[in-house]
């Protein structure tokens, strides 16, 4: 589709994508550590997963290898099922406590 020159102009180096994914991943980790609302923690976890997805896709392009892309499809499927279970657990918690603040989860200690 592109000539070699055009391709060289359009091509963003892989390292840019990897740096972006590292930044997204760090934001996700920070969100998990700082936020106290279970739903917001879920969103931060999603951010971490998608940071990994971005890295996979970028590497897959760099290697011209499809297995990285396949990995991303599996990760998205897994993430969806994981969120379904997580939200169910949050609903169960909310019914018994009327709160989803994870700092209030301390019925067991020692």
């Amino acid at each position, binding site marked *: 589709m592109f000539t070699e020159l055009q391709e060289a102009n359009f091509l963003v180096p892989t390292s840019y994508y*990897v740096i972006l*994914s590292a930044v997204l*991943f760090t934001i*996700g*980790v920070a969100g*998990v550590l700082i936020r106290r609302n*279970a739903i917001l*923690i*879920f969103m931060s*976890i999603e951010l*971490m*997963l998608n*940071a*990994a997805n971005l*890295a*996979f896709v*970028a*590497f897959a392009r*760099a*290697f011209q*290898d499809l*297995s*990285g892309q*396949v*990995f991303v499809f*599996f*990760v998205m499927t*897994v993430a969806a*099922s*994981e969120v379904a*279970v*997580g939200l169910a*657990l*949050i609903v*169960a*918690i909310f*019914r*018994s*406590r009327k709160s989803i603040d*994870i700092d209030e*989860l301390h*019925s*067991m200690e*020692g």
Partner: protein
Amino acid sequence: MLTESVPLMQAVVPVLPEMGLLLLLILVLMHGVFSPKESRRTVCVITGVGFFTLMVIHLSVGFNFVGDPDFSGSGLGDIVRVDAFAVMFRAMILLAAALTCLMSGESRAINRRVEFYVALIVAALGMCLMVAANDLILVYVALETASVSLYIMAGFQRDSKLSSEAGLKYYLFGAVTSAILLYGLSLIFGFTGETNFSRLGPALSALTANGSEGVFALVVALLLVLVGLGFKVAVVPFHFWTPDVYEGSPTPSVAFISTASKAASFGLLVRFFSIVWPAEMIPYWAGLLAALAAITMTLGNMLALVQKNIKRMLGYSSIAQAGYALIGVVALSDTELGAAAVAFYMAMYVLTNLAAFAVISAVEWNTGSVQIADYAGLSRRSFPLAIVMVVAMLSLGGVPPAAGFFGKFFLFSAAVDAGYTWLAIIGVVNAIIALFYYLTVIKVMFVGKAEDESRYTIRPRLAVVLWVTGVGILLMGTLASPWWRWAVEASQQLTVMLP
């Protein structure tokens, strides 16, 4: 005809238990939908017998095929590799699942609720794939299949505050650590462009040959991967979920999480560290794991000493046990006996913890209590229960004639062989400290006096679990050599199976 049947067997045998589990899953789902409510009480027996049958088929087929030079063991397009090591761990997982089913049938929280058994089957399916995984994609997918089902099992008692809290805590820790693991896998893929284990090893070696930069990048990936696997086996500092999940979740769920999940994760850990990481990385991961093992054993045992709730105590005890088993993974850096020691230790640990949780289930059925103080006078209220508990506690503590003695012996001798004598000494000191809280339970059962010393009833299905585990522990402890030889052969195949 004969020439055609060979490729078919080659394709089917590596995933035989998984196919069986899928059939069992459909059967149980149908049973739950179509059969009337009264007959649903049989679901635990159906699932349990299903698991047990699968284990027997798996073992007999496994013995026939694995080790045969014509049988490559690779399945599903080489994302699964079945060797004797995988066969051994799959058998442990299926046995643990079968016994958990029988325990669930005698648990008031679960009893005939079909959803629990569905989650159990899916979890077992994920674990069976985990121990035979030969590809990064399958590692992640299998790990998550097992984990997501375990979250459901942990939070199964929706109306109980403790259970839903345990489920959410397990979920939050699990989801975060698996996302970190995934990022580590993405880096490994990024360095090599490979996801298959057999091609990853050489590709990573080539990377480390480039000098310190390659090694540094791999150390980062190693740390990220270790977070995810460390969570699964409950290694300090990723152990925070353990005590709460053990205390809050229904007892059969805990029994399964503490045995099958730990065994499967150690199976994956051993395979990952023996096949994927190149020799240049050994000093890094072996040193790191040795430090983690020492800290994990010590912290787990110290915190277990002060517990009043027996499930919580076993939670901290399971952290300590993960620390011991980690010694075997460290020893793997120098001798394949390390892998054999881990396999033997996990087999004994699965039986022992199931025995302990079966006793806890039986006492819970009668009194509803899980406090150690309420075990007072157990020897007079039900002598068989007390005897099985004694066997389990001695086995966890590493006292002969229970299996735990040989388990620890093989681990520590593998560590000495590999040149980690200091780690073996820390292990022995820890085993002595741990005896204190294990023996406390025995003391309470035999010396303690309860106001009401009426007899306990032992439910028939629990009796089966108690018999199987109790006899199994003593058999492994007195006749250890056939099991040990099997484990050694399995660990030799772990490295031989490389292309």
